[in-house]
């Protein structure tokens, strides 16, 4: 037994480095090939559930530390601010009319800004706790998951400067965290249309670090009708995204003689580098 085992063991020992590498590369290749097949995504969800928890802890700690720092700084300024506020309160105390006007204005602003009231969808507010470490895949990790009712493929939006735009969709769901696939991703395709002319097309990203989108399959006959600066919104054709959510603004239109459609470059309506809070839309509460 040992005389048979020894040469084999020697061979394995001699080439064990290469042997293990081949096993790893083969396993990785099989996983890539069967990516998206039911059951294969399960380890990814488990990994996300575990890492998502720690990401939440790290992100939360950083947030708390930042807040504590700002509290210390704020304390130095507190007295002056308090005195200013007290003076302002005195001024407003006798001014009933101004207060009513302010209330009305406040109400109007709330109506404009309150996304929850303006769309026939229920939204789950989430905070970004992580971003993609690699440069090719542009991923956002948010602090709510399966336990909060988040499911795969739910649309994600955000409001920036009073404008609500599409961020992407939920790609993976962990227990307490989820992965958002943003519209910048080259593998996410969205049925869209030019807002004013209603010409349809397909919007996709160009990969990470390139905050531009491309819109294709827009008919060449629309060339004179669409212009730089026109808004592009979701078409609402597929069941994933509600219609008329803002995606971006036309930045450049190019046409080639041999093509029947236009190549349109879009600038996203949202600045993805400044996103902090998102809203996940769902049709049920």
């Amino acid at each position, binding site marked *: 037994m040992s005389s048979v085992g020894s040469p084999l063991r020697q061979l394995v020992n001699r080439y*064990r*480095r290469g042997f*293990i*590498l081949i096993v*790893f*590369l083969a*396993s*990785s*290749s*099989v*996983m*890539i*090939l069967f*990516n*998206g097949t039911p059951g*294969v*995504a399960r*380890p*990814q969800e*488990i*990994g*996300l559930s*575990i*890492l*998502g928890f*720690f*990401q939440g802890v*790290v*992100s939360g700690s*950083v947030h708390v530390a930042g807040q504590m720092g700002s509290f210390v700084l704020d304390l130095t300024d507190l007295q002056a601010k308090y005195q200013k506020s007290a003076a302002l309160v005195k001024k407003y105390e006798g001014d009933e009319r101004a207060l009513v006007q302010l209330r009305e204005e406040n109400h109007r602003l709330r109506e404009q800004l309150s996304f929850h009231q303006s769309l026939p969808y229920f939204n789950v507010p989430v905070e970004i*706790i*992580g*971003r*993609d*470490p*690699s*440069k*090719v*895949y542009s*991923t956002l*990790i948010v602090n709510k998951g399966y336990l909060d009712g988040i499911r795969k493929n739910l649309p994600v939006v955000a409001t920036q400067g009073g404008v609500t735009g599409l961020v992407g969709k939920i*790609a*993976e769901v962990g227990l307490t965290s989820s*992965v958002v*696939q943003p519209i910048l*991703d*080259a*593998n996410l395709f969205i049925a869209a249309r030019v807002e004013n002319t209603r010409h349809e097309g397909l919007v996709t990203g*160009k*990969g*990470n*670090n*390139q*905050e531009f989108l491309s819109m294709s399959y827009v008919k060449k006959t629309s060339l004179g009708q669409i212009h730089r600066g026109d808004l592009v919104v979701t078409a609402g054709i597929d069941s994933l995204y509600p219609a008329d959510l803002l995606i971006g603004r036309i930045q450049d239109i190019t046409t080639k003689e041999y093509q029947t459609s236009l190549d349109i470059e879009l600038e996203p309506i949202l600045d993805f*580098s400044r996103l902090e809070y998102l809203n996940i839309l769902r049709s049920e509460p």
Partner: protein
Amino acid sequence: MIRTIVWALGILVALLLLQTTLLSYLVVFGVKPNFLLLVFVILATQNGSFSSQIVGFGLGLLVDAVTTSPLGYHAFLFALAGYLFGLGSGKVYFDPIVMPVLLGLLATLYETMTGFGLNVLFQLGQPISAYFNLGTLFQLILNLLLSPLVFWIYGWVKEKFQDPRRGFGG
């Protein structure tokens, strides 16, 4: 050797958490330096191919879990990197600047080329411009500039936590 693997994985997982949270805000010209890759290749050149490919495979799977990349993509990338960069173990003298910079250069080029190769081989649907763009060049420069600093921090941590009898993690 198990100790080496556990140590390296522990450091890299902690760094992965930092890279996806705190360090993700460190953006220069729209580009983030890849600290995870830099530290991984430094560890690989210290620990050798065998343990580094195991660490790389495990780390890659974790990275796959928190990104939209297909499961196995980063596992492949890091396992192969562990093997290749581990080949240099014990054969390279590390000065404070030139070797770390060279390592940063090779690691960034490796990540871009291998990532592109996997994209072509498995038809992952990423455009060529996602790999070869101005951002890649900026990231290369950033990684080159930060490599000596990362190597210096690694040396400091090693000195502080090294067990004189058993070595760092082994």
